[in-house]
């Protein structure tokens, strides 16, 4: 299995806290969609899988290798978490797209500007945005910028925390298309948290219902 997590255990809430244990897996080229009502711990699960949040038990495996044996920095760049609220750094759109490659780990993976421009076109972002201050983008543009940045990092697993939330239907379809095309490459998978049931353009989707798992 490309990516797998077994008995990930975590506690939600402070006063009326409850413990959740969840397992799942996703094969190469596939998308695992995580369902569950608001507050069921979907975001937290993604953050745990990205090793941004502590968990009380369980283990995750990337290409059969446990996260206990992969350094956190390498894990986080390989199992890349894309936050629900797009994170933009000071500077232009272009500098935001190449921000990840300022880290030592990714400095040698720096893609060509053409790759970034190609993705921008695919995600229906105007060429003229390239030099623009990223903090002046609209919510929908910012979400697509963050998504392109994730594509450029080219992780092995992309963890998407409600990517279409800020998008209109046209851009959402463009995002689904770009995601599907990306998934066709070797050794790639995605786990996606979503509220709406729009999977148009996505193939090979399987589901994980957090609401059900925790009741059982």
């Amino acid at each position: 299995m490309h990516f797998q997590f077994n008995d990930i255990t975590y506690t939600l809430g402070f006063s009326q806290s409850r413990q959740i244990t969840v397992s799942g897996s996703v094969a190469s080229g596939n998308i695992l969609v995580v369902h569950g009502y608001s507050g069921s711990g979907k975001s937290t699960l993604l953050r745990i899988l990205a090793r941004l949040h502590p968990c009380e038990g369980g283990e995750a495996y990337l290409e059969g290798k446990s996260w206990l044996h992969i350094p956190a920095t390498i894990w986080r760049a390989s199992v890349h978490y894309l936050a629900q609220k797009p994170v933009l750094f000071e500077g232009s759109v272009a500098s935001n797209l190449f921000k990840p490659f300022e880290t030592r780990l990714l400095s040698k993976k720096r893609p060509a500007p053409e790759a970034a421009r190609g993705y921008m076109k695919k995600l229906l972002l105007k060429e003229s945005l390239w030099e623009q201050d990223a903090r002046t983008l609209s919510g929908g543009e910012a979400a697509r910028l963050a998504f392109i940045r994730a594509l450029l990092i080219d992780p092995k697993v992309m963890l998407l925390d409600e990517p279409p939330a800020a998008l209109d239907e046209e851009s959402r379809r463009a995002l689904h298309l770009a995601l599907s095309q990306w998934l066709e490459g070797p050794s790639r998978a995605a786990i996606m948290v979503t509220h709406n049931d729009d999977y148009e353009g996505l193939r090979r989707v399987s589901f994980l219902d957090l609401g059900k798992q925790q009741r059982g």
Partner: protein
Amino acid sequence: MENTTIPISNFQLAFTVILVLITGGISSFLKLGLLKPLIWGTIRTFVQLTLVGYALTYIFQFNNLLLVIAIVTLMCYIASKTAVKRTPNVFNYPAMLAFASLLASTFLVGSIVTVLIIAPEPWYSARIVIPIFGMILGNAMNGIAISLDRLYSEVRSGSALIEAMLTFGATPWEAVQASVREAVRAGMTPTINSLMVVGLVSLPGMMTGQILSGADPRDAVRYQIVVMLMISAAVAIGCLILVGLSYKRLFTRDGALQQSILQSRGDTQ
């Protein structure tokens, strides 16, 4: 030039009551509620300084290297306790880290000044070392308090950016670069600014003291130059060491941001 201080007799000192009455008068006239702290503060000023005067006389006569080191270390300890209390954005910060950074910066810069620049005989002469180290410490203490507080507030407000950096495979150090830079800058700025206006807006206390005690102003100025530059160096080193020792506390052992930092942001579920 007459090279002596004009002494203040007990009788003359008693006239300071006039000054206390002025301050107290304003406080009660405006109902500031500062009368009690003013009286208590006045008494403490008299008692503390009188005791320090006797203690310093004794220490200067004794002039023992180990005693001097012990006193400076104690001063560092008190300063570190004070520094960590002045940080509204930081909770439960171990004073030991502040102590370590103050100790290192004060001893390093203080030794350069006393051994190389002023070079008294002997080099650990308490009359030179204690006031010099005290001035360094007082300023370094303020600098590290500002730095530490700024580090935490920057990381809290920029936690989304720091987490994003982590998802790019950044190490904790790479992820907090921007915050670290801001924190050290914030700690150093007041001293750098004071380099610009020194002597124009006010005469620094040490220089004033030397001039009052009859020193040639041109000599006093040379001392003041040394003091200003040593303070900037000590603040810079102190802030850098403290931030270097502190940033790891913001992360878990797995190198993720501490949940306590994120929860104060209030948007994780």
